[in-house]
């Protein structure tokens, strides 16, 4: 029972901190932080499945996140009909060429013995395929990108509801993980880390530079939302009534009707933003709870025990007849799919897709710090790690600014050291995260909430 007390205490402190932000900064900021904490929690659940359950080190989280984000664009944006007319055929032809290349390569690999000739023929097929692809795609891409380049210039999506894209994001990330897993899972742990890190870079650079796909670095803005828009809320009767009801005591303080109206307007604007964020919080919380239940069930099922056995002693598990390669591939796909889901959730929350913002620092290493700090192998720990680290990541700058001001208050305003420190306050987040990670690795390597094995 003591373990549960720990968990409850840790989560209560976290909630308390977020409430403190709500009181001291604003409720809107607190909810933004909470939403991102929940998204980070989904990512950490994914990473924890790979690292905590199976001991697979995946530094490619950024790639799956970006792919999840891409799914939102591909699913929810209305199709650009004109772009399809001018260049759709070329793109479809390219897809067929890629499929053909894969089949030819597979055929050669299966049919012939391992030899130099086989390697050269595979290489020449791939090289020839790439040249063919470029020749086919070039006119199509040019035509697509010239269709109203300021607004569209890409193929657009399927115009489906945005929530559907979460599933598609997970599927996309999962299928990518299948390919990567087939290639890289046989590698030693630190090779796997480097390989996945680099493959994620390749994926992001493709998304960044193929503008016909999702506008690349030109970004896609104004994506659909599963929640109502602020503007609609501010004009709808029921919402204004709701705000009036909640704030009736405050509103009654002011005497004149114009004052009252003005105060009410301000409240409606604030409340609409909070309401929208609450809607997102509800959605994300549902996802986190469903995932938590499923992963928790899986962890204590025979399958989970098998995974832990493989993690702790591969040879013994293999001797017991467990198919290690297959299980590793499966768990790699599952974890990546969850990360892809988180990527889709994040883009939905932001309402915009910015491929330029996907950087390994923020989307791979910070997520890893979350998993390590929270507790590997324990889902409650991983989620808590997501909350704690994201909170520090966001709030480190204001806290650092406050501390700098406190400690340098005896110095004059124009003191060079003070000015420099205040300017570099945003970078203290790296310091906090780094030192936090080092301390946890040293003094509590199993994380804040360690893995616990139930003896059955």
């Amino acid at each position, binding site marked *: 029972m003591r373990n549960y007390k720990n968990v409850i205490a840790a989560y209560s402190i976290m909630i308390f901190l977020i409430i403190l932000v709500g009181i001291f900064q604003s409720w809107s900021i607190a909810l933004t932080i909470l939403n991102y904490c929940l998204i980070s929690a989904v990512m950490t659940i994914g990473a924890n499945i790979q690292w905590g359950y199976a001991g697979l080190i995946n530094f490619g989280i950024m790639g799956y996140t970006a792919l999840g984000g891409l799914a939102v664009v591909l699913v929810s944006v209305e199709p650009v009909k004109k772009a399809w007319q001018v260049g759709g055929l070329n793109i479809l032809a390219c897809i067929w060429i890629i499929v053909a290349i894969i089949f030819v390569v597979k055929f050669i690999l299966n049919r012939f013995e391992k030899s130099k000739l086989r390697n050269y023929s595979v290489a020449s097929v791939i090289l020839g395929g790439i040249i063919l692809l470029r020749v086919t795609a070039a006119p199509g891409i040019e035509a697509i990108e010239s269709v109203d380049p300021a607004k569209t210039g890409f193929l657009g999506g399927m115009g489906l509801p945005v929530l559907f894209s979460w599933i598609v994001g997970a599927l996309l990330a999962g299928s990518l993980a299948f390919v990567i897993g087939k290639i890289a899972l046989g590698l030693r742990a630190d090779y796997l880390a480097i390989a996945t*890190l*680099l493959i994620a*870079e*390749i994926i992001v650079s*493709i998304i960044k530079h193929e503008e016909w796909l999702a506008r690349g670095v030109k970004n896609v803005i104004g994506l659909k939302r599963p929640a109502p828009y602020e503007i609609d809320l501010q004009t709808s009767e029921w919402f204004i009534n709701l705000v009036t009801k909640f704030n009736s005591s405050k509103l009654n303080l002011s005497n004149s009707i114009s004052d009252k109206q003005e105060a009410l307007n301000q409240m409606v604007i604030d409340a609409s933003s909070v309401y929208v964020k609450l809607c997102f919080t509800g959605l994300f919380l549902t996802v986190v709870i469903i995932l938590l239940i499923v992963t928790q069930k899986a962890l204590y099922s025979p399958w989970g025990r098998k995974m832990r056995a493989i993690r702790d002693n591969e040879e013994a598990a293999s001797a017991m007849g467990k198919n290690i390669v297959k299980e590793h591939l499966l768990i790699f796909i599952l974890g990546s799919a969850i990360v892809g889901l988180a990527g889709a959730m994040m883009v939905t929350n932001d309402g915009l897709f910015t491929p330029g913002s996907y950087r390994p620092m923020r989307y791979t290493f910070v997520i890893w710090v979350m998993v390590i700090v929270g507790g590997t192998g324990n889902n409650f720990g991983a989620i808590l790690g997501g909350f704690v680290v994201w909170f520090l990541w966001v709030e480190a700058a204001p806290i650092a600014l406050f501390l700098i001001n406190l400690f340098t208050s005896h110095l004059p305003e124009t003191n060079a050291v003070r000015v420099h420190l205040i300017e570099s306050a945003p*970078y203290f987040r790296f310091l906090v995260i*780094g030192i936090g990670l*080092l301390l946890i*690795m040293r003094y509590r390597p199993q994380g804040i909430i360690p893995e616990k094995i139930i003896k059955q």
Partner: protein
Amino acid sequence: MDFLNAIIVLLNFTVIPALAYGSQLALGAIFVTLIYAVLRFANFATGDMMSFGTMFAVILTYYFQSLGIGLGVLPTALLTIPFAILMMILYMLIIDKFVFSYYRIKKSPPVQFAMVSVGVMFVTQALIRIIIGPSDRRFLDGEKFILKATEFKEMTGLAEGITLKSTQAITIIVTLIVVSIMFWFLNRTKTGTSMRAYSDNEDLALLSGIDPKRVVLITWVIAGILATIGGVLYGLDKSYRPFVYFNNMLPIFAAAIVGGIGNPFGAFLGGYVIAFAEIFVTYAYKRFISYLLPEHLEPDSLLQLLSTDYKFAVSFSILVIVLLIRPSGIFKGKVI
């Protein structure tokens, strides 16, 4: 004549830049590979450590410039390298003492080391940004060009010219000097031999009386030298920007693995393999071909295999291919 022009186009736009870039990668890759061979972990703080050493060189360059000390035609940064190296080695030793040595004594698995190095990466990045800030800085002074395209054209009377930037020449020469001294040290001196023995088989090396502390110390010293020089050369050639250094870690890793991680000579060549591949695959061959073919056959397109946006992606794909076909790298890794 046309043939000569074609060769010169190729030299000017691919070979010379690739040699310079490859040298910078090679220094970083040897740094990665040494740490991997002796201390046995993949150091994810590589890029930021290089950036940290360069930061001192940048600050000292500004300081020397304000004092009026310089090297004339050569960049002042060359003068600051020794001081920057000292600071860098000091920083590395402090990090080793407070962070890495604990895990070394505990004989932690390499994955744990890698995660710890991620922590070091965060801290180093924070220190750099707090000390010097994230902005783009140029600290090159002295003569910019050794040979300008117009001068070359006048000298030879050809239609195409070769531009040789002084930073490119300095990069290649300094790299060759540093790398040859390092290989001489590793292969011919007693300390170097003891390092190789330690990397080969730790237990046997300990039995034969090699002091592990000394080996680790010397590794960090060499690492500090390589990291700082590699970083400063890159900064001179392009510019100093902390974020770019972090990104450079990725092709450096690719170079180290392509060459066979743990093998310094492999890493040295791996740097050039990656650099040449990146530049050859993303270069537009239109001008080159148009000199070779008769006029009516001149190509319309740029004849570019991949656009330059995919520069990094090329090196990573090479890495993936090498990992697939020959995971131990072109030259067998895991020995120095």
